[in-house]
């Protein structure tokens, strides 16, 4: 099966994530679209890992370790990001990102 298929799928998922970030105003949805983009990149990396493993490279597993680290960073990011969103909601009773464009007050 061509690796191209995985490239196209990842591009499509990534661009859906980009569209979501640009189209929505709910901070939580925007955050979820960022997760979608991260996952598109992870999927591509795993596909390339399989490609190099088929080519006989012994270090093809490194790509999967990178995916693992991306998951770790994404989990940390979600913890801090959701804490920030909860704090903003507590202060302004909204998760509209247009409220966050003035960080003062």
């Amino acid at each position: 099966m061509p690796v191209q298929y995985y490239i196209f799928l990842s591009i499509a998922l990534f661009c859906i994530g980009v569209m979501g970030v640009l189209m929505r105003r709910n901070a939580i949805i925007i955050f979820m679209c960022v997760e979608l983009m991260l996952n598109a990149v992870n999927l591509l990396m795993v596909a390339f890992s399989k490609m190099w493993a088929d080519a006989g490279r012994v270090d093809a597993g490194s790509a999967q370790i990178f995916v693992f680290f991306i998951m770790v960073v994404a989990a940390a990011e979600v913890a801090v990001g959701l804490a920030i969103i909860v704090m903003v909601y507590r202060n302004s009773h909204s998760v509209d990102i247009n409220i966050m464009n003035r960080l003062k007050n």
Partner: protein
Amino acid sequence: MGMSLQQIIFGVLSVISLVSALGVVLSKNPVTSVLCLIVTFFTIAGHYIMLNAQFLAVVHIIVYAGAIMVLFLFVIMLMNLNAEIEPQKRSWLKYAGAISGGALLVVLLAALREASVPSLKPESTDIGLIANLGKTLFSQYVVPFEVSSILFLSAMVGAVVIGKKED
């Protein structure tokens, strides 16, 4: 032209993941968005299994579906958000966003359409098994592993500090 079983499974998983990813963006209710994203994550885990990344598939389900999406769902239900109170962008901004994303899609597809990459072989490899990944992780990537644990600790402390009510 016969399609192999792998291609059929790939096609089904891809269609489900694209449709549910669109559902994340287009649905009005945030809870529906979260559920669509969980479906997307499960299909991506299916892709990982198809690509012989069994360990990553399990970790992906545990971390994303088990931890991250539960956190999202918890926050959304805590805030009691629903579709009526969500502010909508002005429609020309929405169109601009959709057109920009679509332009990015077209450019990337056009750029990578002719890329010469080999095909994946149908037979399985064992690089994604936990024994091999563990060996790589704890021989070549010990320092990044420890640094990520520090990152996790600081993220936990940061989340608690930010989320704390100031009196």
